[in-house]
Protein backbone atom coordinates (compact mmCIF):
# COMPACT_ATOMS: atom_id res chain seq x y z
CA UNK A 1 0.00 0.00 0.00
CA UNK A 2 1.55 3.23 -1.08
CA UNK A 3 0.33 6.47 -2.51
CA UNK A 4 1.94 7.89 -5.60
CA UNK A 5 0.22 11.29 -5.56
CA UNK A 6 -0.71 13.79 -2.88
CA UNK A 7 -4.24 14.10 -1.56
CA UNK A 8 -6.24 16.73 -3.48
CA UNK A 9 -3.85 17.06 -6.36
CA UNK A 10 -4.94 17.26 -9.98
CA UNK A 11 -4.57 14.03 -11.90
CA UNK A 12 -4.86 13.29 -15.60
CA UNK A 13 -6.30 10.09 -17.09
CA UNK A 14 -3.86 7.21 -16.84
CA UNK A 15 -1.91 8.61 -13.92
CA UNK A 16 -1.02 6.13 -11.18
CA UNK A 17 -2.59 7.04 -7.83
CA UNK A 18 -1.81 4.17 -5.50
CA UNK A 19 -0.38 0.69 -5.39
CA UNK A 20 -1.81 -2.20 -3.46
CA UNK A 21 -5.23 -3.37 -2.31
CA UNK A 22 -7.36 -0.27 -2.02
CA UNK A 23 -11.03 0.28 -1.85
CA UNK A 24 -11.77 2.51 -4.76
CA UNK A 25 -14.83 4.46 -5.63
CA UNK A 26 -15.44 6.32 -8.86
CA UNK A 27 -13.12 8.05 -11.29
CA UNK A 28 -10.52 5.34 -11.04
CA UNK A 29 -9.60 2.23 -12.94
CA UNK A 30 -7.37 -0.67 -12.09
CA UNK A 31 -4.38 -1.81 -14.07
CA UNK A 32 -2.54 -4.81 -12.66
CA UNK A 33 -1.95 -3.83 -9.00
CA UNK A 34 -1.99 -0.09 -9.60
CA UNK A 35 -4.96 2.19 -9.21
CA UNK A 36 -5.01 4.75 -11.99
CA UNK A 37 -7.19 7.74 -12.63
CA UNK A 38 -9.64 7.45 -15.48
CA UNK A 39 -10.64 11.11 -15.66
CA UNK A 40 -9.19 14.56 -15.35
CA UNK A 41 -9.95 15.44 -11.77
CA UNK A 42 -8.91 15.90 -8.18
CA UNK A 43 -7.88 12.93 -6.01
CA UNK A 44 -9.41 12.39 -2.61
CA UNK A 45 -7.79 9.89 -0.31
CA UNK A 46 -9.76 8.95 2.78
CA UNK A 47 -9.96 5.90 5.06
CA UNK A 48 -7.89 3.78 2.72
CA UNK A 49 -10.34 4.58 -0.06
CA UNK A 50 -9.54 6.47 -3.20
CA UNK A 51 -11.71 8.49 -5.53
CA UNK A 52 -11.22 11.05 -8.25
CA UNK A 53 -13.77 13.84 -8.49
CA UNK A 54 -13.92 14.84 -12.15
CA UNK A 55 -13.36 18.45 -13.17
CA UNK A 56 -15.21 18.10 -16.47
CA UNK A 57 -17.85 15.87 -17.91
CA UNK A 58 -21.51 15.43 -18.59
CA UNK A 59 -24.12 14.81 -15.95
CA UNK A 60 -24.85 11.15 -15.39
CA UNK A 61 -28.20 10.72 -13.62
CA UNK A 62 -28.46 8.70 -10.42
CA UNK A 63 -31.61 7.61 -8.67
CA UNK A 64 -32.75 10.21 -6.17
CA UNK A 65 -31.09 13.22 -7.81
CA UNK A 66 -33.06 16.43 -8.08
CA UNK A 67 -32.74 17.89 -11.55
CA UNK A 68 -34.04 20.84 -13.53
CA UNK A 69 -35.00 20.13 -17.12
CA UNK A 70 -36.74 21.65 -20.09
CA UNK A 71 -39.62 20.00 -21.92
CA UNK A 72 -38.56 19.26 -25.48
CA UNK A 73 -41.39 17.10 -26.76
CA UNK A 74 -44.79 15.75 -25.80
CA UNK A 75 -45.77 12.11 -26.25
CA UNK A 76 -49.29 10.65 -25.87
CA UNK A 77 -48.89 10.08 -22.12
CA UNK A 78 -45.54 11.58 -21.20
CA UNK A 79 -43.06 14.36 -21.75
CA UNK A 80 -39.45 14.22 -22.86
CA UNK A 81 -37.16 16.45 -20.86
CA UNK A 82 -33.69 17.63 -21.65
CA UNK A 83 -31.66 17.41 -18.44
CA UNK A 84 -28.17 17.82 -19.97
CA UNK A 85 -27.52 14.11 -19.69
CA UNK A 86 -26.46 12.01 -22.65
CA UNK A 87 -30.00 10.66 -22.76
CA UNK A 88 -33.51 12.16 -22.79
CA UNK A 89 -35.46 11.90 -19.56
CA UNK A 90 -39.04 10.74 -19.48
CA UNK A 91 -41.79 12.13 -17.28
CA UNK A 92 -45.03 10.15 -17.31
CA UNK A 93 -48.36 11.84 -16.59
CA UNK A 94 -48.95 9.58 -13.61
CA UNK A 95 -45.66 10.72 -12.10
CA UNK A 96 -46.10 14.36 -12.97
CA UNK A 97 -49.08 15.46 -10.88
CA UNK A 98 -50.98 14.07 -7.95
CA UNK A 99 -54.36 14.26 -9.66
CA UNK A 100 -54.78 14.26 -13.38
CA UNK A 101 -58.33 14.81 -14.52
CA UNK A 102 -57.82 14.95 -18.23
CA UNK A 103 -54.95 13.42 -20.15
CA UNK A 104 -56.32 14.25 -23.58
CA UNK A 105 -54.23 17.37 -23.90
CA UNK A 106 -50.94 17.26 -22.07
CA UNK A 107 -49.97 20.65 -23.41
CA UNK A 108 -52.36 22.18 -20.88
CA UNK A 109 -50.18 20.78 -18.09
CA UNK A 110 -46.63 21.29 -19.37
CA UNK A 111 -45.80 23.01 -22.65
CA UNK A 112 -42.67 22.60 -24.74
CA UNK A 113 -40.08 24.93 -23.24
CA UNK A 114 -41.40 24.74 -19.69
CA UNK A 115 -38.80 24.39 -16.97
CA UNK A 116 -39.49 21.55 -14.57
CA UNK A 117 -37.93 20.66 -11.24
CA UNK A 118 -38.07 16.90 -10.90
CA UNK A 119 -36.63 13.94 -9.10
CA UNK A 120 -34.93 11.02 -10.80
CA UNK A 121 -37.17 8.09 -9.96
CA UNK A 122 -35.13 5.46 -11.72
CA UNK A 123 -32.36 4.93 -14.21
CA UNK A 124 -32.98 1.78 -16.19
CA UNK A 125 -30.55 -0.82 -17.35
CA UNK A 126 -30.31 0.71 -20.79
CA UNK A 127 -29.90 4.15 -19.21
CA UNK A 128 -33.43 5.38 -19.75
CA UNK A 129 -34.24 8.03 -17.19
CA UNK A 130 -37.61 8.13 -15.44
CA UNK A 131 -38.55 11.31 -13.58
CA UNK A 132 -41.18 12.16 -11.02
CA UNK A 133 -42.55 15.53 -9.95
CA UNK A 134 -45.49 14.73 -7.69
CA UNK A 135 -44.64 16.17 -4.29
CA UNK A 136 -44.34 19.72 -3.17
CA UNK A 137 -41.00 21.21 -4.23
CA UNK A 138 -41.18 19.52 -7.61
CA UNK A 139 -43.11 20.80 -10.56
CA UNK A 140 -43.15 23.57 -13.07
CA UNK A 141 -40.93 26.56 -12.32
CA UNK A 142 -42.81 29.70 -13.19
CA UNK A 143 -40.97 32.92 -13.98
CA UNK A 144 -37.31 33.23 -13.11
CA UNK A 145 -34.42 32.10 -15.22
CA UNK A 146 -32.15 29.11 -15.61
CA UNK A 147 -28.37 29.27 -15.53
CA UNK A 148 -26.43 26.30 -16.78
CA UNK A 149 -23.07 25.27 -15.34
CA UNK A 150 -20.92 22.15 -15.32
CA UNK A 151 -22.64 19.37 -13.40
CA UNK A 152 -19.31 18.48 -11.79
CA UNK A 153 -19.24 21.87 -10.08
CA UNK A 154 -22.70 21.84 -8.55
CA UNK A 155 -21.39 20.89 -5.08
CA UNK A 156 -19.42 24.14 -5.10
CA UNK A 157 -22.58 26.17 -5.69
CA UNK A 158 -24.13 24.51 -2.67
CA UNK A 159 -21.02 24.74 -0.52
CA UNK A 160 -20.16 22.98 2.69
CA UNK A 161 -23.43 22.28 4.48
CA UNK A 162 -25.14 24.66 2.08
CA UNK A 163 -23.00 27.66 3.03
CA UNK A 164 -22.63 29.04 -0.46
CA UNK A 165 -26.27 28.78 -1.44
CA UNK A 166 -27.32 30.26 1.90
CA UNK A 167 -25.00 33.19 1.26
CA UNK A 168 -26.46 33.79 -2.18
CA UNK A 169 -30.03 33.57 -0.95
CA UNK A 170 -29.51 35.82 2.05
CA UNK A 171 -27.63 38.55 0.29
CA UNK A 172 -29.81 38.83 -2.81
CA UNK A 173 -33.21 37.70 -1.49
CA UNK A 174 -33.59 35.44 -4.53
CA UNK A 175 -35.23 32.06 -4.66
CA UNK A 176 -32.67 29.55 -5.93
CA UNK A 177 -33.17 25.93 -6.88
CA UNK A 178 -30.16 23.82 -7.76
CA UNK A 179 -30.43 20.79 -9.99
CA UNK A 180 -27.76 18.14 -9.74
CA UNK A 181 -27.48 18.31 -13.51
CA UNK A 182 -26.02 21.81 -13.50
CA UNK A 183 -29.19 23.75 -14.20
CA UNK A 184 -29.86 26.40 -11.57
CA UNK A 185 -33.13 28.24 -11.39
CA UNK A 186 -33.19 31.77 -9.97
CA UNK A 187 -36.17 33.98 -9.19
CA UNK A 188 -36.07 37.43 -7.67
CA UNK A 189 -35.67 41.05 -8.60
CA UNK A 190 -34.21 41.62 -12.05
CA UNK A 191 -30.93 43.15 -10.88
CA UNK A 192 -30.59 40.58 -8.13
CA UNK A 193 -31.05 37.78 -10.62
CA UNK A 194 -28.24 39.30 -12.70
CA UNK A 195 -25.96 39.38 -9.69
CA UNK A 196 -26.71 35.80 -8.74
CA UNK A 197 -26.17 34.69 -12.31
CA UNK A 198 -22.78 36.35 -12.45
CA UNK A 199 -21.81 34.88 -9.09
CA UNK A 200 -22.82 31.39 -10.18
CA UNK A 201 -20.86 31.66 -13.40
CA UNK A 202 -17.87 32.77 -11.36
CA UNK A 203 -18.25 29.72 -9.14
CA UNK A 204 -18.37 27.58 -12.27
CA UNK A 205 -15.12 29.06 -13.57
CA UNK A 206 -13.21 28.94 -10.31
CA UNK A 207 -14.69 25.84 -8.72
CA UNK A 208 -11.35 24.11 -8.14
CA UNK A 209 -9.65 27.05 -6.39
CA UNK A 210 -9.89 27.13 -2.58
CA UNK A 211 -11.38 30.07 -0.69
CA UNK A 212 -14.32 30.34 -3.04
CA UNK A 213 -16.99 31.37 -0.55
CA UNK A 214 -14.97 34.37 0.62
CA UNK A 215 -14.33 35.53 -2.90
CA UNK A 216 -17.98 35.19 -3.87
CA UNK A 217 -18.96 37.11 -0.75
CA UNK A 218 -16.61 39.93 -1.67
CA UNK A 219 -18.00 40.10 -5.19
CA UNK A 220 -21.57 40.13 -3.89
CA UNK A 221 -20.79 42.90 -1.40
CA UNK A 222 -19.20 45.14 -4.01
CA UNK A 223 -22.01 44.49 -6.48
CA UNK A 224 -24.76 45.11 -3.94
CA UNK A 225 -23.24 48.35 -2.68
CA UNK A 226 -23.38 49.78 -6.17
Amino acid sequence: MEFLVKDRSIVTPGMAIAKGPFRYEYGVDKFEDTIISSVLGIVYIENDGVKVVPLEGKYMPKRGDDVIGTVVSINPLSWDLDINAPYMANLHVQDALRYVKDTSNLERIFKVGDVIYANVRDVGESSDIVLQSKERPYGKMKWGRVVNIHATRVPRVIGKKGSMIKLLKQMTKCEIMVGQNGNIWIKGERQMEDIVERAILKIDREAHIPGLTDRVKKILETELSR
Partner: protein
Amino acid sequence: MEKDIKFFTNGKRIDGRAVDELRNIKIEVGVFKRADGSSYIEWGGNKIYCAVYGPREAYPRFLQKSDRAILKCRYNMASFAVEERKRPGPSRRGVEIGKVTQGALEPALLLENFPKCMVEVNIEVIQADAGTRCAGITAASVALANAGIPMKELVPACAAGKVDDKIVLDLCKEEDNYGQADLPLALLPRRNEFSLLQMDGDLSEEQLEEALDLGRKGCLEVYEIQKEALKKKYVTEDVANE
Protein backbone atom coordinates in the same frame (compact mmCIF):
# COMPACT_ATOMS: atom_id res chain seq x y z
CA MET B 1 10.05 10.82 -55.13
CA GLU B 2 13.68 11.02 -54.10
CA LYS B 3 15.38 14.29 -54.53
CA ASP B 4 18.94 15.34 -54.03
CA ILE B 5 18.77 16.82 -50.56
CA LYS B 6 21.48 16.87 -47.96
CA PHE B 7 19.60 15.57 -44.94
CA PHE B 8 22.44 15.74 -42.44
CA THR B 9 25.08 18.37 -41.77
CA ASN B 10 27.46 17.72 -38.89
CA GLY B 11 25.10 15.12 -37.49
CA LYS B 12 22.23 17.61 -37.34
CA ARG B 13 19.10 17.43 -39.41
CA ILE B 14 17.73 19.99 -41.87
CA ASP B 15 15.98 21.95 -39.15
CA GLY B 16 18.91 21.63 -36.75
CA ARG B 17 17.52 18.82 -34.63
CA ALA B 18 19.31 15.73 -33.41
CA VAL B 19 18.23 12.33 -34.70
CA ASP B 20 16.08 11.61 -31.65
CA GLU B 21 14.70 15.08 -31.04
CA LEU B 22 11.07 16.17 -31.37
CA ARG B 23 9.95 19.47 -32.81
CA ASN B 24 8.50 22.05 -30.45
CA ILE B 25 5.09 21.06 -29.17
CA LYS B 26 2.61 23.38 -27.53
CA ILE B 27 -0.85 22.26 -26.42
CA GLU B 28 -3.68 24.44 -25.21
CA VAL B 29 -6.77 23.00 -23.55
CA GLY B 30 -10.36 24.20 -23.60
CA VAL B 31 -10.16 26.65 -26.48
CA PHE B 32 -13.81 26.38 -27.59
CA LYS B 33 -16.79 27.37 -25.52
CA ARG B 34 -19.49 25.39 -27.27
CA ALA B 35 -17.63 22.10 -27.46
CA ASP B 36 -17.64 19.73 -24.49
CA GLY B 37 -13.89 19.47 -24.79
CA SER B 38 -11.34 21.07 -27.06
CA SER B 39 -7.66 21.56 -27.64
CA TYR B 40 -5.21 23.31 -29.90
CA ILE B 41 -1.83 21.94 -30.78
CA GLU B 42 1.19 23.50 -32.40
CA TRP B 43 3.67 20.83 -33.37
CA GLY B 44 6.48 22.34 -35.37
CA GLY B 45 4.62 24.00 -38.23
CA ASN B 46 1.43 22.04 -37.64
CA LYS B 47 -1.51 23.96 -36.30
CA ILE B 48 -4.49 21.84 -35.41
CA TYR B 49 -7.74 22.44 -33.57
CA CYS B 50 -9.69 19.62 -32.05
CA ALA B 51 -13.24 19.68 -30.67
CA VAL B 52 -15.01 16.87 -28.87
CA TYR B 53 -18.78 16.58 -28.47
CA GLY B 54 -20.61 14.08 -26.34
CA PRO B 55 -21.34 11.62 -25.02
CA ARG B 56 -24.73 12.24 -26.55
CA GLU B 57 -27.40 10.19 -28.23
CA ALA B 58 -26.06 8.45 -31.33
CA TYR B 59 -27.54 9.41 -34.67
CA PRO B 60 -28.38 7.91 -37.11
CA ARG B 61 -30.18 5.50 -34.85
CA PHE B 62 -28.94 2.31 -36.51
CA LEU B 63 -25.38 3.12 -35.48
CA GLN B 64 -26.28 2.88 -31.79
CA LYS B 65 -24.64 0.07 -29.87
CA SER B 66 -26.76 -1.16 -26.98
CA ASP B 67 -23.75 -1.93 -24.76
CA ARG B 68 -21.40 0.95 -25.40
CA ALA B 69 -20.86 4.28 -27.08
CA ILE B 70 -19.50 4.68 -30.57
CA LEU B 71 -16.61 6.93 -31.43
CA LYS B 72 -16.79 9.07 -34.53
CA CYS B 73 -13.68 10.81 -35.76
CA ARG B 74 -13.51 13.33 -38.52
CA TYR B 75 -10.27 14.67 -39.90
CA ASN B 76 -10.38 17.69 -42.12
CA MET B 77 -7.73 19.83 -43.66
CA ALA B 78 -8.32 23.46 -44.52
CA SER B 79 -7.83 24.36 -48.17
CA PHE B 80 -5.04 26.75 -47.17
CA ALA B 81 -3.26 24.28 -44.90
CA VAL B 82 -0.80 23.06 -47.50
CA GLU B 83 1.46 24.69 -50.07
CA GLU B 84 -0.85 24.12 -52.98
CA ARG B 85 -4.55 24.68 -52.45
CA LYS B 86 -6.26 21.56 -51.19
CA ARG B 87 -9.70 20.93 -52.57
CA PRO B 88 -12.00 21.52 -49.61
CA GLY B 89 -14.30 18.84 -48.30
CA PRO B 90 -13.87 15.19 -47.46
CA SER B 91 -11.18 13.35 -49.34
CA ARG B 92 -9.89 9.80 -49.53
CA ARG B 93 -6.97 10.75 -47.31
CA GLY B 94 -9.15 12.57 -44.79
CA VAL B 95 -11.50 9.62 -44.42
CA GLU B 96 -8.57 7.26 -43.94
CA ILE B 97 -6.98 9.39 -41.25
CA GLY B 98 -10.32 9.76 -39.50
CA LYS B 99 -10.61 6.01 -39.48
CA VAL B 100 -7.14 5.34 -38.11
CA THR B 101 -7.62 8.08 -35.51
CA GLN B 102 -10.74 6.32 -34.31
CA GLY B 103 -8.83 3.07 -34.15
CA ALA B 104 -6.01 4.70 -32.24
CA LEU B 105 -8.24 6.34 -29.63
CA GLU B 106 -10.93 3.72 -29.10
CA PRO B 107 -8.86 1.21 -27.11
CA ALA B 108 -8.04 3.91 -24.58
CA LEU B 109 -11.62 5.03 -23.89
CA LEU B 110 -14.10 3.50 -21.45
CA LEU B 111 -16.97 3.69 -23.89
CA GLU B 112 -18.96 0.95 -22.17
CA ASN B 113 -20.05 3.56 -19.59
CA PHE B 114 -22.29 5.21 -22.16
CA PRO B 115 -24.49 2.75 -24.03
CA LYS B 116 -26.36 4.03 -27.09
CA CYS B 117 -24.29 7.20 -27.18
CA MET B 118 -21.70 8.61 -29.46
CA VAL B 119 -18.62 10.68 -28.92
CA GLU B 120 -17.60 12.91 -31.77
CA VAL B 121 -14.06 14.02 -32.39
CA ASN B 122 -13.44 16.73 -34.94
CA ILE B 123 -9.88 17.42 -36.03
CA GLU B 124 -9.31 20.53 -38.11
CA VAL B 125 -5.91 21.05 -39.64
CA ILE B 126 -5.30 24.76 -40.15
CA GLN B 127 -1.68 24.45 -41.16
CA ALA B 128 0.05 21.24 -42.14
CA ASP B 129 3.74 20.52 -41.86
CA ALA B 130 4.20 16.73 -41.83
CA GLY B 131 2.90 14.44 -39.14
CA THR B 132 -0.61 15.84 -38.90
CA ARG B 133 -2.22 12.52 -38.03
CA CYS B 134 0.06 12.10 -35.02
CA ALA B 135 -0.50 15.66 -33.92
CA GLY B 136 -4.23 15.18 -34.47
CA ILE B 137 -4.39 12.05 -32.32
CA THR B 138 -2.35 13.75 -29.59
CA ALA B 139 -4.68 16.76 -29.60
CA ALA B 140 -7.81 14.61 -29.78
CA SER B 141 -6.76 12.62 -26.74
CA VAL B 142 -6.25 15.80 -24.73
CA ALA B 143 -9.61 17.15 -25.90
CA LEU B 144 -11.33 13.92 -24.84
CA ALA B 145 -9.83 14.27 -21.37
CA ASN B 146 -10.99 17.87 -21.33
CA ALA B 147 -14.51 16.68 -22.18
CA GLY B 148 -14.43 14.48 -19.08
CA ILE B 149 -14.79 11.24 -20.95
CA PRO B 150 -13.44 8.39 -18.82
CA MET B 151 -10.46 6.66 -20.32
CA LYS B 152 -7.77 4.20 -19.42
CA GLU B 153 -5.03 6.58 -20.38
CA LEU B 154 -4.06 9.35 -22.74
CA VAL B 155 -2.83 8.43 -26.19
CA PRO B 156 0.32 10.17 -27.35
CA ALA B 157 1.36 9.78 -30.98
CA CYS B 158 4.56 10.45 -32.83
CA ALA B 159 6.23 9.42 -36.07
CA ALA B 160 9.54 7.77 -36.71
CA GLY B 161 11.12 7.29 -40.09
CA LYS B 162 14.13 6.60 -42.21
CA VAL B 163 16.15 9.29 -43.93
CA ASP B 164 19.48 8.67 -45.63
CA ASP B 165 19.48 5.13 -44.16
CA LYS B 166 19.26 6.54 -40.65
CA ILE B 167 16.33 6.15 -38.28
CA VAL B 168 15.03 9.53 -37.14
CA LEU B 169 12.24 10.73 -34.87
CA ASP B 170 9.41 13.06 -35.87
CA LEU B 171 9.96 13.73 -39.56
CA CYS B 172 9.83 17.29 -40.83
CA LYS B 173 8.32 18.25 -44.17
CA GLU B 174 11.37 17.57 -46.34
CA GLU B 175 12.18 14.33 -44.60
CA ASP B 176 8.59 13.19 -44.97
CA ASN B 177 8.42 14.05 -48.67
CA TYR B 178 11.86 12.93 -49.81
CA GLY B 179 12.88 10.47 -47.08
CA GLN B 180 12.79 6.71 -47.34
CA ALA B 181 10.14 5.75 -44.79
CA ASP B 182 7.53 7.23 -42.49
CA LEU B 183 6.14 5.29 -39.54
CA PRO B 184 3.36 7.05 -37.59
CA LEU B 185 2.75 5.52 -34.17
CA ALA B 186 0.27 5.97 -31.35
CA LEU B 187 1.11 4.47 -27.97
CA LEU B 188 -0.87 3.30 -24.97
CA PRO B 189 1.89 4.13 -22.51
CA ARG B 190 0.85 2.07 -19.51
CA ARG B 191 0.08 -1.01 -21.51
CA ASN B 192 3.06 -0.40 -23.74
CA GLU B 193 1.02 -1.23 -26.83
CA PHE B 194 0.73 0.57 -30.11
CA SER B 195 -2.77 1.52 -31.20
CA LEU B 196 -1.63 3.03 -34.48
CA LEU B 197 1.08 1.71 -36.72
CA GLN B 198 1.24 2.65 -40.34
CA MET B 199 4.17 2.53 -42.69
CA ASP B 200 4.94 4.40 -45.85
CA GLY B 201 8.21 3.34 -47.49
CA ASP B 202 10.62 0.50 -46.81
CA LEU B 203 12.21 -0.63 -43.59
CA SER B 204 14.15 -3.79 -42.87
CA GLU B 205 13.19 -5.85 -39.84
CA GLU B 206 16.01 -4.47 -37.70
CA GLN B 207 15.26 -0.95 -38.83
CA LEU B 208 11.60 -1.41 -37.96
CA GLU B 209 12.53 -2.54 -34.46
CA GLU B 210 14.83 0.44 -34.07
CA ALA B 211 12.17 2.83 -35.37
CA LEU B 212 9.57 1.39 -32.98
CA ASP B 213 11.89 1.88 -30.03
CA LEU B 214 12.67 5.43 -31.06
CA GLY B 215 9.00 6.14 -31.72
CA ARG B 216 8.04 4.76 -28.32
CA LYS B 217 10.53 7.10 -26.70
CA GLY B 218 9.11 10.04 -28.67
CA CYS B 219 5.55 9.11 -27.68
CA LEU B 220 6.51 9.08 -24.01
CA GLU B 221 7.92 12.58 -24.38
CA VAL B 222 4.68 13.70 -26.01
CA TYR B 223 2.76 12.05 -23.16
CA GLU B 224 4.50 14.29 -20.63
CA ILE B 225 3.58 17.35 -22.66
CA GLN B 226 -0.06 16.22 -22.77
CA LYS B 227 -0.22 15.80 -19.01
CA GLU B 228 1.41 19.16 -18.43
CA ALA B 229 -1.04 20.88 -20.78
CA LEU B 230 -4.05 19.42 -18.97
CA LYS B 231 -2.75 20.37 -15.53
CA LYS B 232 -1.62 23.79 -16.64
CA LYS B 233 -5.15 24.83 -17.52
CA TYR B 234 -6.20 24.64 -13.90
CA VAL B 235 -3.01 25.95 -12.39
CA THR B 236 -2.84 29.10 -14.54
CA GLU B 237 -6.40 29.94 -13.61
CA ASP B 238 -5.28 29.56 -10.04
CA VAL B 239 -2.48 32.08 -10.37
CA ALA B 240 -4.60 34.55 -12.29
CA ASN B 241 -6.85 34.97 -9.29
CA GLU B 242 -4.24 35.37 -6.63
